[in-house]
């Protein structure tokens, strides 16, 4: 079978660097505040509407703020597997940016593997695929944990 093309499930939200992927945000240069998803037209910091906005890669690691899971298949537009495979979802706090960013937790890691404040790093995994493409998304994974990379291989 020909190899499928790896494409981001959403354009411009993260780098497609498998080794050290980053979420792509933006920074209000006058206030120093960050935005994710990136805001390039108008700073959302009150009083800083004239500030320049620059695209930045956000911190690749953070600490676990809270977590949950999806025991039932989410409805469309989520592309669920059949049968549904439960997955965990994390909210991770980035120190430099002082913001919390959500994402699915890497395949094979359940809520029982997670604990408050643990360090999490950004990874890329396949979210779903069709005949031609694998659609890639960011996920959070406990730093240093060895988890299945799902059906990426």
């Amino acid at each position, binding site marked *: 079978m020909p190899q499928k093309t790896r494409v981001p499930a959403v354009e411009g939200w993260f780098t497609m660097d498998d080794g050290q992927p980053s979420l792509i945000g933006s920074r209000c240069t006058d206030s120093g505040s960050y935005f994710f998803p990136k805001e390039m037209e108008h700073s959302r910091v009150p009083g800083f509407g004239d500030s320049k906005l620059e695209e930045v890669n956000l911190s690749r690691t953070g600490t676990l703020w809270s977590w*949950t899971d999806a025991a039932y*298949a989410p*409805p469309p537009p*989520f592309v669920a597997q059949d049968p549904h495979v439960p997955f965990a979802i994390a909210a991770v706090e980035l120190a430099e940016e002082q913001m919390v*960013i959500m994402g699915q937790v890497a395949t094979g890691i359940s809520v029982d593997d997670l604990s408050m404040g643990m360090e999490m790093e950004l990874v890329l995994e396949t979210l779903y695929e069709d005949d031609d493409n694998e659609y890639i*998304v960011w996920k959070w994974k406990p730093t240093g944990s060895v988890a299945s990379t799902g059906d990426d291989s």
Partner: protein
Amino acid sequence: MGVETIADEAIAVAGVGMHPWGKWGRNFVEYGVHAIEAALADAGVAWSEVQFVAGGGTVRNGYPGYVAGATFAQAMGWTGVPISTSYAACASGVQAIQSARAQILAGFCDVAVVVGSDTTPKGFLKPNEGGSGTDPDWLRFHLMGATNPTYFGLYARRRMELFGATEEDFAQVKVKNSQCGATNPNARYNKAFTLEEVLASPMVASPLRLLEICATSDGAAAMVLVSAERARKMGLKSPVRVTGVSTVTPTYPNSVIEMPNFSTDSATGVADPGPTFRDSIAAAAYEQAGIGPDDLDLAEVYDLSSALELDWYENIGLCKEGEAEKMLRDGDTSLGGKCPVNPSGGLGAFGEAVPAQAIAQVCELTWQLRGQAGERQVEGAKVGLTINQGLFGHGSSVICQS
């Protein structure tokens, strides 16, 4: 009479009415008309006397779809009455109340109808079809599979980790509310659940179980609001008055993750905004009414999940952060306790009919403050507060006093 205060001239609730919550599968217009007729009858006001109709925007389903104010003006019989339609997700109902209240306080009218009604689909609330890569609500489902219970689960887990909440606490909220809901003729679920039954229900969004997450329901609620002067002319004796309405949005940086967002605001480089968004919602209502949490006899809070009810105890100032579990365990928020919360049965007993729910909360305050709440009556209730939050940053809170 002394100096005229806002409270003296506060608008009055002349009538309230509902269509019972359920899964009826009919057109939302039908439920709304039923609720309006009930509210008009309760007020002793004829449709022809209504000078303004404020509708909470219908979210999905049911011809004519997204329209509300005009839909009900048409269904009741066109009289040329001016209308407004407010969409603010779960907070739509209070935006409609505020719309009618502003019209009355501005002197544009003195009798207004507020109505919210909806028919909901089965299962998770989900984004509308035809969404795209620019709609955060569509994207959070598509990219993360993050449903509404996902966010409730995040908050609940954090309560367990920070404040020692237990799964039994969350289940106990459902038990408490279901006991009230069992006696409420407008509630959808009339079963009083046991702790064991709640804890045996399947996990949906860890640590939250099926019976701890509110369902989606069909239902409608309506109110007849009148000016203070009109209330006097109608001869209403000590009517329930609306003395505070809050429709605040967050202050940057909003540091709590909220539906449908992927992230919080960044606190880097900006001043601490002070109270959290949820704390600020009730604060604005208290300030308008000139009262505080100690004055409350009851509260109706938006228990989208049983754990979220505990957050609200703190957000409305019933206790300090981290003390909600103690209030619950001590029975302070049960019927007969210091400040009963959700004597209606809450969303746990109703399921959510989005544009109607925040209005339904105020209907409950009205019945409670009139002493008409039957078996779920809070003894001697004089002051009540509702609170709710709609996704996309919509705060809403109403204070009623008799």
